[in-house]
């Protein structure tokens, strides 16, 4: 960069002096230093020439007709904001006052006559050195600004534009002048549940957004393939740990909303408390950070787990980044959690939480420049699956066709048997879905298949192998209790198995059908009540909402081997 500045052959200098003689002398000296020189004989003309030629250096006399040097300097300096063209007063007024006034008018130096040509040239060189430095800083600043703009564009245009469900999820994003790297991601899993992430990368500008691209890809792809939120978090942590330098990390809160189960799963790693608000704005839960930010540790802490909460359909989960809580006003006070909670109460009542909060923060901080990005995500807890299942119609008429097809044998089969410890460590569902998609391509019906597969697999593992009683889940605390027991038993699991089998049948008249067979090593159960519940026992006894859902989605569901084997058939027209 320095070279580039040096190469710029002829720099321009402007000499403003009412003495033609002086102009001549200074011009000669400047030309010897490689400048091209313009001259003006009074202040007004000086300002005009400055505007016209934008010189790199100005030499200014003090006493001149029409406009004196101080006034001309004030005008020039106000014109040249952000662009340092050094201005030196050349004068024979050797008083303290002249010196002070020159500097106050905006001069960068003063040279008192008489001086030798050598002293003059030295002065010019020193002032030019400063202005070159200034130009370098300016250039760096501009390239940094470009980086920040690029980073911002990446985040909002490329990454966040692909978010899911933006018509229902309220997102506020207000970037600080110094772009700081908040990121909001939403994606839908194959069964219609939603995963949401609010993240805050350390640092500023492009540097802070390097991690954003792999982060958003991992989050989206794994969600779509049906990996559990915890598996996604584990992967993201490892990925960021290897990708980012030690001082760069991602504080993030992850949420999985399952409206079918009326449950949310939350993991807060380094962000301020997040909230579950009831329909009337009361705080039902405040979820604290329990883990260092993503990318700090190579492995998640051993005791890491998702927090599980039962929710009502009208509840909202609200995530905030520290930019909101730490916003300051003129007195230096922080906005803080109390104000946030009060505004949230108002916001929920007005059914527009995101906007109410932002207005409230703006009113509080008034014109104080923002120090950090402010962002907030407001997630409603209901009706996420609606869109997935609405277009499904029962097709009992295809059933008979299935039976005919089955006799010709499957076009392909796929089996997977997990035993003992592997059951605790491996989630076979994304693998199975991957196989299906690799062979048959992707399609909308995979969402239903994913749900069938997940529900049946979880039943086989939980109730079959782990022998958990689902009636534990009936009350709100029971849910957490259930998951605790599940984890305990998984940890100790040494034997037992679950076997998954897929049989795929093609057909000329239809698109074929698939049979999913799952067998477990459990004791079985009296399945008659589940598949054909007696009238007296309908609805409430079915803590197995899962089976109910599967029944709606597939064409047939059959239990055998005392309930240790289940086969679901699914066809699409």
């Amino acid at each position: 960069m320095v070279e580039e500045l040096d190469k710029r052959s002829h720099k321009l200098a402007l000499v403003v002096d009412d003495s033609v003689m002086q102009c001549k002398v200074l011009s000669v000296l400047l030309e010897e230093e490689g400048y091209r020189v313009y001259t003006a004989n009074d202040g007004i003309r000086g300002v005009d020439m400055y505007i016209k030629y934008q010189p790199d250096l100005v030499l200014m006399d003090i006493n001149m007709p029409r406009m004196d040097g101080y006034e001309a300097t004030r005008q020039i300096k106000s014109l040249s904001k952000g662009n340092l063209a050094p201005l030196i007063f050349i004068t024979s007024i050797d008083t303290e006052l002249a010196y002070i006034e020159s500097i106050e008018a905006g001069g960068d130096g003063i040279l008192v006559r008489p001086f030798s040509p050598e002293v003059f040239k030295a002065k010019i060189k020193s002032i030019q050195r400063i202005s070159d430095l200034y130009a370098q800083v300016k250039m760096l600043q501009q390239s940094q600004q470009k980086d920040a703009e690029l980073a911002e564009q990446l985040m909002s245009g490329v990454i966040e534009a692909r978010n899911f469900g933006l018509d229902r999820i309220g997102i506020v994003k207000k970037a600080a002048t110094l772009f700081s790297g908040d990121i909001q991601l939403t994606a839908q899993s194959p069964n219609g549940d939603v995963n949401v992430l609010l993240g805050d990368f350390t640092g500023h500008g492009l540097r802070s957004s390097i991690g954003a691209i792999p982060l958003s890809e991992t989050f989206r792809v794994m969600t779509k393939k049906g990996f559990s939120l915890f598996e996604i978090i584990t992967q993201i942590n490892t990925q960021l740990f290897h990708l980012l330098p030690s001082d760069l990390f991602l504080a993030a809160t992850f949420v999985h909303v399952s409206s079918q189960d009326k449950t949310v799963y939350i993991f807060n790693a380094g962000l301020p408390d997040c909230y579950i608000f009831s329909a009337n704005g009361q705080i039902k839960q405040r979820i604290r950070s329990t883990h260092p930010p993503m990318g700090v540790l190579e492995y998640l802490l051993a005791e890491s787990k998702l927090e599980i909460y039962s929710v009502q359909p009208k509840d909202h989960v609200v995530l905030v980044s520290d930019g909101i809580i730490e916003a300051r006003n003129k007195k230096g006070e922080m906005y803080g959690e109390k104000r946030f909670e009060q505004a949230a109460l108002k916001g929920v009542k007005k059914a527009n939480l995101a906007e109410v909060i932002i207005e409230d923060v703006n009113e509080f901080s008034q014109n104080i420049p923002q120090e950090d990005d402010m962002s907030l995500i407001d997630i409603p807890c209901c009706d996420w699956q609606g869109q997935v299942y609405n277009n499904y119609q029962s097709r009992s008429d295809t059933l008979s066709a299935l039976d005919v097809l089955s006799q010709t044998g499957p076009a392909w089969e796929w089996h997977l048997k997990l035993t003992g410890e592997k059951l605790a460590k491996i989630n076979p569902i994304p693998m199975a879905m991957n196989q299906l998609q690799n062979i048959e391509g992707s399609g909308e019906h995979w969402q239903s298949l994913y749900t069938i597969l997940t529900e049946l697999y979880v039943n086989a593992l939980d109730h079959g192998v782990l022998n958990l009683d689902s009636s534990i889940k009936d009350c709100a605390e029971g849910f957490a209790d259930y998951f605790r027991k599940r984890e305990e038993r998984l940890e100790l699991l040494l034997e037992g198995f679950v076997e998954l089998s897929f049989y795929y049948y093609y057909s000329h008249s239809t698109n074929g059908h698939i049979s999913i067979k799952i067998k477990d090593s459990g004791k079985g159960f009296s399945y008659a009540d589940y598949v054909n519940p007696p009238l007296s026992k309908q609805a409430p006894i079915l803590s197995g909402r899962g089976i109910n859902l599967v029944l709606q989605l597939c064409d047939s569901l059959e239990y055998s081997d005392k309930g240790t084997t289940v086969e679901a058939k699914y066809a699409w027209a």
Partner: protein
Amino acid sequence: MTIKKYVSENKKEVTLSIEERFDFSLHQSFRNSYVNCEQQNTVFNIDLSNTSYMDSSALGMILLLKDHADKLQGNVVILKPSDSVNKILEIAQFHRLMTIEN
């Protein structure tokens, strides 16, 4: 915004004390204050008793210091964070990574 540095006589303990704000502007001087400490088993104390504010880049700087200390089989100890600073350390769950003495 300054960093004061005290080195114990046996050079085994380095205390960095940070005044007022601990943020990105201290990046270079914070790094300079420890990079030349190559003594094995050095304990680096970060005294935050006079720190009024800390941002996430400060957390990053502390992690870099921890990397440095780990290489020397040393340790990082955070001393006396004020309430507001402690809150930030708590949100980031730094007590899981190093000792924090109140």
